[in-house]
């Protein structure tokens, strides 16, 4: 998995509306890439729903979240509508998982990204990264807050 301090690998992915977003477009703000296995995962409370609840808190700290999975833009659109998400979802679809692989968070056994968080600073350098020990373990939103306040952790 990618190490803090290294430059974040560039990417160009389509979001749920088919618009291309590249890392270059996101320069100048702190970005958290939320890698997750698949849209429509069957847990009672979804990771992205909780992050969604906190979107305003993240925004007030100048942080923008982007979900990334190997699903297509159309699946992302349906998932976003189902969960009432405003967090953009990026389709790491073709070549499948290329961005997850570039960030070292691709799971070959499952054929999906692992559950991982990568915080990228306004300068395009990785500030912090976390990968769940298993796909069943959802990284707590508290980890993102802690990463934003290293002194308070």
């Amino acid at each position, binding site marked *: 998995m990618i190490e803090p301090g290294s430059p974040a690998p560039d990417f160009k992915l389509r979001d749920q509306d088919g618009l291309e977003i590249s890392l270059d477009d996101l320069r100048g703000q702190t970005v958290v890439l939320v890698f997750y296995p698949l849209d429509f995962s069957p847990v009672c409370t*979804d990771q992205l729903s909780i992050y969604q*609840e906190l979107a305003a808190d993240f925004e007030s700290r100048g942080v923008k979240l982007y979900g990334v999975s190997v699903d297509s833009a159309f699946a992302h659109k349906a998932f976003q509508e189902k969960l009432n*998400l405003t967090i953009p979802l990026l389709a790491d679809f073709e070549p499948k998982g290329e961005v997850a692989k570039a960030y070292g968070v691709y799971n070959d056994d499952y054929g999906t990204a692992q559950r991982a968080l990568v915080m990228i600073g306004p300068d395009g350098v990785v500030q912090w990264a976390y990968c769940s020990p298993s796909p069943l373990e959802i990284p*707590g939103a508290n980890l993102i807050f802690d990463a934003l306040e290293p002194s308070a952790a």
Partner: protein
Amino acid sequence: MRGDSGPLVIEYGDYECPYCARTDRLLAELPIVRVFRHFPVPSKHPRARPLALAAEAAGRQGRFWEMHDSLFGDQGHLDDPHLWERVRGLGLDLERFEADRRSPELDERVTRDFHSGVRAGVMSTPTLFVDGEACPGVPKPELLERLGRG
């Protein structure tokens, strides 16, 4: 807080979550002290927040746990008219209930519960905290047995 003695169990849950209802029934049989904190996730459960506020509003009239039991006891009837029926059934003042459940104080309280859960690492409901240890999901038999010993 509910229960006189035994280990302290803090539950983060939501009244629209079926796993929370199951957990609640399991905990009800144990000799423990219970604290319930709201963890509503509206995008998944659109009624979760209004229901948390309803329980808190009943609490303003001293009947939090009665409303709590009523909501978990029947998750098929959670719309506003059903809430009014429950309020009447508990003998509460409906007008006061309606005002309280829309009050900013209670809204802040529910938000505070949610954020305290987030900061403690809660990412799914139910999540129990036993001796400071997070136990996500419906409690396993081992945990129930441990708690049952008191």
